[in-house]
């Protein structure tokens, strides 16, 4: 916010920032530093061999591809849901709006069990898909569906407020100039939504890469095919290989951090655009 000055008349800077940094340090930074320090127990070669092992590489691929597809699906459908919720009126809208938050609240394990039950070959939907030759549970598609469930609120909830606050005037102007609805959407509305869409996409993506609880039930955990990276961390732990587990964790942490940095860059850019307008 450009209004704030370096020397503000407002009180509480020392207290609030001090507490923020103190709490952030003891809750997040120091514990996460443990991962780095634990990894230093490995030599560079050991580290490199651990994190580039064929199965580990395959798990990155599975995690990345499923998280990416899920985030893409959420990008499209999340925008659609947000659009419908903001712009249209239909009975039960409030209820539908609340439903969007439920994936936050439902324990991931329950989500995993419930989704597996539905999409397994003998489940409600799975049994309908078997005759078509489509397998969902225990394939990457199943993982993707679990991740769509987990990531949905991120996209909807980042796009919704922006859509809500969108100026009508530019739209009106576009109509006045004779633009079709679709063209108006593409040329006028969509560009304004892009920063928030990207933010939502990136958050859903980052969350999806790390998700464990809901995925292990539906993935089938086949090495090289449906084995996700968090599961490999678990596997290393069960073999008492702490250094190996933290090595993979370190790779994931770095990836998460980069993701977030990109998110915040978009956020910052969209904020700047908002204030310069």
């Amino acid at each position, binding site marked *: 916010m450009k209004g704030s000055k370096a020397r503000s008349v407002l*009180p*509480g800077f*020392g*207290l609030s920032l*001090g*507490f923020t940094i*103190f*709490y952030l340090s003891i809750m997040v930074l120091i514990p996460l530093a443990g991962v780095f320090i634990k990894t230093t127990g490995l030599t560079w070669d050991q580290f490199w061999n651990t994190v580039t*092992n*064929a*199965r580990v590489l*395959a798990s990155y691929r599975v995690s990345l591809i499923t998280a990416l597809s899920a985030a893409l699906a959420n990008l499209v459908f999340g925008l659609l849901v947000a659009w419908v919720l903001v712009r249209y009126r239909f009975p039960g809208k409030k209820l539908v709006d609340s439903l969007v938050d439920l994936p936050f609240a439902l324990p991931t394990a329950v989500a995993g069990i419930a989704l*597996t*039950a539905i999409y*397994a*070959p*003998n*489940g409600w939907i799975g049994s309908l898909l078997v005759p078509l030759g489509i397998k969902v*549970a*225990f394939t990457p598609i199943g993982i993707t569906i679990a991740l769509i469930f987990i990531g949905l609120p991120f996209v909807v909830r980042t796009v919704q407020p922006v859509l809500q606050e969108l100026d009508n005037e530019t739209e009106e102007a576009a109509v006045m100039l004779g633009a079709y609805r679709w063209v108006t959407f593409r040329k006028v509305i969509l560009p304004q939504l892009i920063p928030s869409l990207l933010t939502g996409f990136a958050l859903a993506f980052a969350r999806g890469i790390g998700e464990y609880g809901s995925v*292990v*039930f539906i993935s*089938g*955990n*086949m*090495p*090289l095919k449906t084995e996700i990276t968090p*599961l490999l961390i*678990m*596997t290393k*732990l*069960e*073999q*008492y*290989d702490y250094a*190996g587990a933290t090595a993979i964790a370190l790779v994931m942490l770095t990836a998460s951090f980069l993701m977030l940095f990109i998110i915040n860059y978009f956020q910052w850019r969209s904020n700047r655009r908002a204030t310069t307008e």
Partner: protein
Amino acid sequence: MSNLTKKTMFSFRSFLVLAVFAIVLAGCGSTNGSGKATNNDAGKATNETAGNEAAGNTSKETQKPAVELLNVSYDPTRELYEAYNTLFADYWKKEKNQAVTIKQSHGGSGKQSRAVIDGLKADVVTLALGYDIDAIAEKGFINTDWQKKFESNSSPYTSTIVLLVRKGNPKGIKDWNDLIKDDVEVITPNPKTSGGARWNYLAAWGYALKQNGGDENKAKEFVAELFKHVPVLDSGARGSTTTFVERGLGDVLLAWENEAYLSVNELGKDKFEIVYPSISILAEPPVAVVDKVTDSKGTREVAEAYLNYLYTEEAQKLVAENYYRPQLASVAEQFKDRFPQLDLLTIDKDFGSWKEAQSKHFADGGVFDQIYTPGS
């Protein structure tokens, strides 16, 4: 407001907030600490001199306050220990006039053993395989000679690996080599995360080795082929059972004998049947007292009695009723119809030791990993 007073005011406030916060955190820690302490008031005097068990025992015998044990076990023993805990509590009450409550924790064997290593205060561990107890012993929680502490290699009950198939055995599965027939799907958990799955794997390996006159390459080919028939690798034994039973996946489930019986009896007598292969493995789920914890809590006497009592006739009957193979000959005789005799491999004779089997087959880069290495 002058700048000076403002500054001091806020630094004081920051201090206050930080202090409150610190107290809250410390509170979480200490409430629990004290909660734990009340549980073992008896052992309090001995807490300071951990290891001095004799003193701990005498003080307990005179006072007889209620005592609490934590049994950290693996997944399939829930039903067994639920029944056994009541049996033992009654016995202990009668014998020593002391109330004992046993808390249970269940999970995958490896996960449970790791929890104990990381500080879960288990008095006794009852896990799926010796390797997991060895891992705890390695960190100094259990004396390394634990396997000699109790009878029969510290395994009060044994089990084996059987094949659970769908009713009528539509795929005609009789033995291990039927598992690699073209249209057969096999369900087993992941040997890297599940203790039970390691027994499955070793039984299959042992079978192939015998069939091929000890040719390890042939054995490797066999297990590689076998795991090509596995569509889902759950992380634990119970997960696999659910996949097979509830989700209807696969034609055959490799399972503990006791799990197989449980599935048949609990989940559908008319849906599944058990097939005994020509050869299997003697699975010995071992038990041990966690020396470090019992010494500091002063619960050694009751913990040892808890495990020893497993070998008595009443307990062995319970064991057999829960489909584990009893060690006691008289009880085994009684239940001999339930547990058919078959050719059983053992870890020590056929695989050297758990350490050897682990490093050869299941460690990173071991045979199991090679099966799943691209290009092999």
